């Protein structure tokens, strides 16, 4: 492991020297150098500490929660949920505000969200951090349909939450204008929110930045599903045994003092101690996604009275064992969930809807005409993002034209704490009124 590390660092050093020696790159823009050429390594390892942008380690935050559905009865199995938690990092003076929407399964305080919060706080913004509509807390407390993934509906939910959050804090801060960003799934949802805001004008967003969005939701989840399955010996039915083995392997790398956290972020963090072998890294990305999607499936299943994995009408309480269900969700790919539960639900609400229609609807192409003329919306992406199918990056380029900033490396959101990328993001929002 040590030798692998050394080899990597040597390579990094060499590359760094090469870049340094090329004066052409140093022209106007800072040169972008990212140490991981492998997109899976980039995604899992992110920017190494030594290369990271400096952000404050702690910013003053205020935690609060919003209740879009105060009348809704929360099932006893979710006894620990009470409203949708959000945070505000407030500037003492009048400043622009930015909403950040988390990626799939990520909460408002996940490491990536904290990084973005600190980046924008340092750049002088009030920051409101929002959990992804795919988190259990959002599905249970803040989603109208309680079936996330249908982007126009997700946008409605998010828009409602943003307005409630703004209501809660507007007495305490002075805001000059509103901005919006999100990464991964949060980015594509932000695009739909921006479109909604174009009509409703609750915020009249000054600028919106989409960071590593999928081009098509279905295409990206299929890829994420495959990443796990490609590497599971014995096939999909053995996923949980496999997870068990991977987890022991991961726990092995963690230090004695370190307590495991139970999130995809933990999996990523533990994996950083591994030599970057692509097949294993790929599996980890797939595994993290599967953990998030299991949580999502359980929440939608329970909120709709069961029928997918939990038999309809089964009472679940804080003392019910969920192990059996957990294993079943874990064995279920998101694509299977899409065909067996998600699509039938939306079809029931909209008779005549076909699967290809729904799949096409859940993409940036669907709102391309809007995006093409929306001068205030920018795209930040990586050429080698692992959630994009071949060719999709070009589709995005076509839609956004000169408003697309695409870095050659960085994987999926692996470079969000890279100084050059951080500079791009803050510059994007600091430029005076785009409209």
């Amino acid at each position, binding site marked *: 492991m040590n030798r692998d590390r050394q080899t990597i660092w040597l390579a990094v050093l060499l590359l760094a020297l090469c870049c340094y020696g090329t004066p052409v790159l140093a022209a106007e823009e800072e040169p972008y150098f990212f140490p991981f050429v492998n997109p899976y390594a980039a995604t899992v390892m992110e920017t190494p500490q030594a290369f990271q942008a400096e952000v404050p380690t702690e910013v003053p935050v205020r935690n609060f929660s919003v209740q879009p559905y105060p009348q809704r009865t929360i099932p006893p199995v979710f006894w620990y949920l009470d409203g949708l938690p959000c945070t505000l990092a407030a500037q003492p003076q009048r400043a622009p505000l930015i909403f950040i929407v988390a990626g799939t399964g990520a909460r408002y305080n996940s490491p990536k969200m904290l990084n973005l919060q600190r980046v924008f706080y340092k750049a002088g913004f009030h920051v409101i951090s929002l959990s992804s509509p795919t988190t*259990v807390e959002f599905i249970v407390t803040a989603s109208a349909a309680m079936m996330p993934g249908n982007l126009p509906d997700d946008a409605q939910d998010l828009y409602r939450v943003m307005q409630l959050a703004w209501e809660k804090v507007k007495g305490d801060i002075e805001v000059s204008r509103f901005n919006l960003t999100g990464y991964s799934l949060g980015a594509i949802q932000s695009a739909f929110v921006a479109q909604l805001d174009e009509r409703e004008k609750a915020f009249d967003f000054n600028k919106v930045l989409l960071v590593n969005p999928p081009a098509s939701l279905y295409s990206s989840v299929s890829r994420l599903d495959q990443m796990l399955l490609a590497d599971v010996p014995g096939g999909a039915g053995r996923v949980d045994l496999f997870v*068990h083995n991977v987890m022991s392997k991961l*726990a092995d790398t963690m230090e004695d003092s370190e307590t495991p956290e139970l999130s995809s972020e933990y999996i990523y963090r533990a994996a950083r101690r591994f030599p970057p072998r692509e097949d294993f890294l790929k599996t980890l990305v797939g595994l993290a996604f599967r953990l998030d999607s299991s949580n999502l499936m359980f929440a939608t299943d329970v909120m709709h009275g069961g029928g997918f994995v939990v*038999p309809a009408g089964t009472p679940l309480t804080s003392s019910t064992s969920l192990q059996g269900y957990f294993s079943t969700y874990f064995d279920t790919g998101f694509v299977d969930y899409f065909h067996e539960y998600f699509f039938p639900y939306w079809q029931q609400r909209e008779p005549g809807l076909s699967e290809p229609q729904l799949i096409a609807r859940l993409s940036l192409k669907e709102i391309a005409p809007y995006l093409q003329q929306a001068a205030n919306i920018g795209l930040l992406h990586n050429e080698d993002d692992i959630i994009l199918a071949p060719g999709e990056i070009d589709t995005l380029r076509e839609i956004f034209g000169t408003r697309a900033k695409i870095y050659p490396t960085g994987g999926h959101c692996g470079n969000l704490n890279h100084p050059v990328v951080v500079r791009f993001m803050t510059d994007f929002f600091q430029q005076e009124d785009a409209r």
Partner: protein
Amino acid sequence: MKRIGVLSTVLILLLLSACSTAPRVPHNAPPPIRLPQIDGVTLNEISDPFERVNRFAYRCNRYLDDYLLLPLVRAYRFVLPDPVEQGVSNALDNIGEIRIITNELLQLKFAKAETSTSRLVINSTIGLLGLWDPAAKHFNLRRQEEDFGQTLGHYGVGHGPYLVLPLFGPSNLRDTSGLTADGLMFVTLDPLNFDHNELDLAFYSLETIDTRKRESFRYFGSGSPFEYELVRMIYTQQRDLKISR
């Protein structure tokens, strides 16, 4: 304090252990779309016969955190400057070396025991009663982590049923016995001379706050509705791993 916790757990266990935690599926429920894989190997290999009580304790710990421990930790951090907090952690760790050395000796790990003994001597003297950790900093003597639960595991004792202890969190019968034994040993050796002073309550309170302060885990911070199951799996694996080291 530890003993009371353990005793009350045992008592509650006896009272409530008979109840089942399996979901009560209505008889007329149509089969769900996805049925559990019957032949699939499940993660449920960790024995958890007291799951109902455990889940109750898990829930209580969440409230204990919200209404007592975390507010105390916040106040503690607000009052003390960071270097002082670090000093307290070091000093408590230093006293803990006694437990570690005993268990290393019980496992006949003499090289490790030597390291820990050197740490205790260096840190208690040069480190000013353990407030600093020069042993790690200047002598490269790393802190080991041993307890009687690990000693039992070392000699082949299995986990026994999984337990969630009030205040202490995830455990199992073996590790709970270990915790009790370590506690009794501490009381017997009485390194801080509690028999002749009144500082024991202050000491245990400080130890509890310091432990919680250093523990980053937050109940339901994972965002997973399967957190109980995941904690059970990871706790068990981590203990196995520590024992094998």
